[in-house]
Structures are given as C-alpha cells and as structure tokens.
C-alpha cells in the first residue's frame, strides 16, 4: 500500500515538473527535454533487455512450442527428424473423449478444493494461535516453516513410507486405537485422500506465514475497542479479524490455488496417479502420457497441458484482480 502511494505521488510530481518545464521553456529546450526523455527510456530498456530476451526465449517460445505440439502428430520419428504432421484438433478430440479426462478433471477439482480449504483453515487457526505472543512463539513459528522448505520429493517419499499399508506408522497408530488398517496408497478409494493429506501438510506453513503477516497489519486499537465493548474472543474473530483479513486471505487462497493446480511431484512419487486413475490429476495425466513410460504420446500430453493452463489462467485472472483490490485498500 505504501509503495503504491509513493509511486502515484512520484508520478504526479513528475508530471507537474514536466508540464511546468514545457510551458516556460522555448522550443529549443523543449526539444532537448524530449531528447533527454528518450535517452532515459533507452537506459531503462537497456537494463530490461536481458529479461525481455529471457522471457521470449525461455517462456514464450516453449509455450508456443507446446501449443504447436498439441496441434500436430508428434511421433518417435519426428523426434529425430524434427518434423511432425499437422493434426488440427484431433489431439484435443482424443483427450476430451478419453475416459480418463472426466476422472482427472474431477480429481483436479477435489484435490485443489480440499487442499485449499484445509490448508487455509488450519493455517488461519495456527496464525491466530501464534498471534498471542508467548515464550518460544517465534522459534516454533520458524520450525513450522520446515516442511515447506523441504524438497517435495523428500516429503512425498517420507509420507509414502508412513502410509505404507503393512509397515507404516499411520496404520500402526490406527491399530493402537482399535481401527482396521487402511490401504492408503494401494486402494482406489483412499489414494486421493493419501496424496491430499500430504499436500495439505506441505501447504500449511505457507498459509500460516501469510495469514500471520496479515494479522499483524490489523490495528490493535480495534481489538481494544471491541474488548471494551465486551465482545468475546469468538465474536471478535468473526466481526473484526476475519473481515479485515479478507484481502490477505484472497491472495493466500489464490496463490495456493495456482500452486495446487501444478502439483506433480507429490502424486507422482506416492501413487503415480494410481491405482488405475484414482489419484490422477490433469498434470499427472499429461506427464504420464508424455513421459510415463511406454511409447511417448507427446501431442495428446501437450493438449492436456494446454487445457490445464486454461484453467490456471482463468483463476489467475481472479488472482490479479484480488491483488489489485488488496493494494487499493
């Protein structure tokens, strides 16, 4: 908020100076002023040249290649010759009529929705808890970050072993309280839940950090006023904390959403999308088609990936709008 304020002010001041100079100066100085502006812009864009080249070469070009790929029939032979026949919408037709499509789309929504809900709810509860400063609170908060910093592959393989049907600690714990073992990774009924639990665990720290930062931005006078009014903790949370946290919440959830749509490592390491398609999301399905062993079907894989990007962008627009709103408040 502060930065955007100063930036607008600065722009306004700059405008004023420019206009003033233009009015007072004879045409010769005006020309030299224009030349100075051009030189300034040239300097600015000289510093931006690396990123522009980078974005074109390593973002736009791969994206374009992927789009092109999805409209061709890329085979093993094209891998060597570099040429592939034009296939029009054939790959999209093939993918959209595939039985896996419905399952993968549904799994993507369930996985994303449930991840966000639990990550946010648990993260918020923890943020509120840590907001009450107590001895050790900042150390413990730092420790909470560890799962988020670990390589996903490490977390995923640890959870895979913990959820192992025969020798995993989770089933052992279930049997201690008298429950039957669950075939977490090998039963189609449970595999999605298993990867979901792991992903929620990974996402909690991120939610905690952002929401905690949001809580700290709420003026303490509001809490004092509400406690004078005799509002209880629960009332205070719902009538002050939660509404004032809305912009931060929106950004947290949307960042989580963009991240969760991409999740690949966790599911691939734990279940490879199986058994069957029971834990396959769109990202997993795309990877499986292209790189999952067997003969690579890169073109259909690219088509699936492009459907995924459409979904990501649709939500991405929400993200940008939410961020604008948060900055303007």
């Amino acid at each position, binding site marked *: 908020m502060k930065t955007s304020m100063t930036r607008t002010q600065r722009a306004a001041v700059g405008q004023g100076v420019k206009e003033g100079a233009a009015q007072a100066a004879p045409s010769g100085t005006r020309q030299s002023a224009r030349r100075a502006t051009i030189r300034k812009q040239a300097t600015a864009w000289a*510093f931006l040249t690396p990123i522009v080249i980078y974005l074109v070469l*390593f973002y736009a070009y791969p994206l374009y290649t992927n789009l092109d790929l999805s409209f061709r029939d890329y085979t093993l032979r094209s891998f060597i010759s570099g040429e592939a026949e034009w296939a029009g919408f054939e790959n999209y037709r093939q993918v959209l009529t595939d039985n896996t499509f419905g399952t993968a789309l549904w799994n993507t929504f369930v996985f994303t929705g449930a991840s966000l809900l639990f990550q946010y709810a648990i993260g918020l509860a923890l943020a509120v808890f840590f907001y009450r400063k107590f001895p*050790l609170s900042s150390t413990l908060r730092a420790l909470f970050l560890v799962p988020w910093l670990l*390589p996903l592959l490490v977390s995923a393989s640890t959870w895979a*072993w913990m959820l192992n049907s025969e020798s995993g*600690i989770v089933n052992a714990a279930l049997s201690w309280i008298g429950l039957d073992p669950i075939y977490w990774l090998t039963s189609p009924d449970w595999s999605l839940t298993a990867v979901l639990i792991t992903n929620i665990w990974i996402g909690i720290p991120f939610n905690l950090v952002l929401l905690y930062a949001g809580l700290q931005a709420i003026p303490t006078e509001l809490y004092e006023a509400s406690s004078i009014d005799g509002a209880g903790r629960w009332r205070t949370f719902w009538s002050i904390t939660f509404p004032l946290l809305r912009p931060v919440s929106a950004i947290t959830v949307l960042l989580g959403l963009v991240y969760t749509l991409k999740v690949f490592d966790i599911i691939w390491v734990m279940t490879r999308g199986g058994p069957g398609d029971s834990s396959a999301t769109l990202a997993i399905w795309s990877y499986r088609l292209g790189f999952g062993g067997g003969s690579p079907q890169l073109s259909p894989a690219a088509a699936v990936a492009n459907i995924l990007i459409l979904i990501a962008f649709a939500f991405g627009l929400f993200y940008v709008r939410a961020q604008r709103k948060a900055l303007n408040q």
Partner: protein
Amino acid sequence: MKRSRKLSTTVIGVVLTAIMLFPLYWMVNVSLTPREQLRADPPSLFPLHPTFSGYTQVLEQQIPYLGTSLVVGLGTVLLTLVIAAPAGYALAQLRPAGGATLNFLLLIAQMIPGIIMAMGFYILFNKWGVLDTIPGLIVADSTLAVPFGVLIFTAFMIGIPRELIQAAWIDGAGAWRTFRSIVLPMSRNSIVSVSLFTFLWSWSDFLFASTLNRGGEHQPITIGIFRYIGNNTQDWNAIMATAVVASVPAAVLLVIAQRYVAAGVTAGALKD
C-alpha cells in the same frame, strides 16, 4: 495466574509443532533403523539400535547426484541474479514506458504449470541439442525463480532513496555505474533472499530433471532418490538416509537465514 496461562500456551505450541514436524522425525528415525527391523510390527518409535549403514550407502552412491544438484543450483542462482537484478532496478527506479505490462507478464509467468514448460523445453532442447545436459537444466530451473526474483528486487529497490541515485548521477556516474556501485550494494538483503530461494527451488526440482535429464550422465539428487524408490523398495532405510541428506540445504537455510525466508514468502505474495 497470567504467567501460568502463558506457560500452558507454550506447551500447546510445542505439542502442535511436534505434531507438524513428526514426519521429519520419522524420516530420521527410519534412516537409522536397521533394515531387518523396518518391517517390525509395530514399528519402533525410537532408533534403539541405530545403524549408519543407510548413510554409508548414500556416501557411496549418491555423492555424484549431490554434486550435480550443487552445480545446477549455483548455476541457476547466477543466471537468475544476472537476469532479475537489472530488471528490478529498471522497474523500480527508471520508470520505463511499458513497465506495468512487463510486471503483468511476470505475474502471469508465475502461474504457468511446470508440466507445460517441461514439454515445450523438451522439444526445444532436443532441437538445440541440450537435452540431458547441465546448462539445459539450469535454464529450465531458472524459470522457477526469475519472475519471483524480479518481483522481490523491484519491491526492495523501490525503497532506495531517489536522492541517493540522483546524487550519483550528478557526480557523473552513468546508469550502469550507479547500479553497480550504489544500487547493488544497498540491495544485499534482497540478493540474499532471491539467491536462497532460487537455490532451494533448483535443488528441489524433480519435474524438469525427470523430463529434460532422463538419461544424462549427470543427474540431480531428486532423480537419485526417485531411482532408489523405483529400484529397491525394500531399502527404505537408505531412501530415508538420502532424504535426510537432501534436506540439509533447507535446514541450513532456515538456521542461517530465517528472517530472509519469512520476508521472502511475504514479500513475494503481498507486494506488487
């Protein structure tokens, strides 16, 4: 009364943290459990007869993978800084026309799912002949960090007083000299933040490694672990030992740079 309530809050906090970190404890525990006890029912909660055979195996087999990850990580950091720092300076201080559009594009770039980039890179790298090479992997990994890096640098460099920069200009320093001798030294904190995150992301990458470096001579540690899981599922003691070793950078990072980490997470998400 009040003190006892604070104490009980601390106790609750410790318990919550312990629950959250239990998987990490379990990873260490399993990495120290002898192979024949891995299948014990119930599993033992403490490594009563610790063995370091898993770690010996890591040292024998995983060192080349760890070395590759280190090289790729450092290369990615370097590339990211070279691209992102000048861009951040321009966007924060030089007011380029079209800067807002560029900011928007960088925001969009962060949302592109990795699988899409991986597939595009796969075709392109094949054409360019950099499939299965370390430079190829460095370029791919840097896409995880460059947009974030520009965002962080812009946010930090906007805070550098304009008077300072103008003074340098008046002294006759060009834009480049100003950038090198004033802006960069003052942005040390943001350079550290960006480097740390970039290294960590590159170190953790599995998607690009498993698509763009499937058969290369030098493969990163994530592939090393994944190979283990695929080949000898019996040997979870060694797998977990590798996992512990692969977590070391994250742990080091947290200890030496905790404030940068939290600041990085928040700045990346909340600042424009």
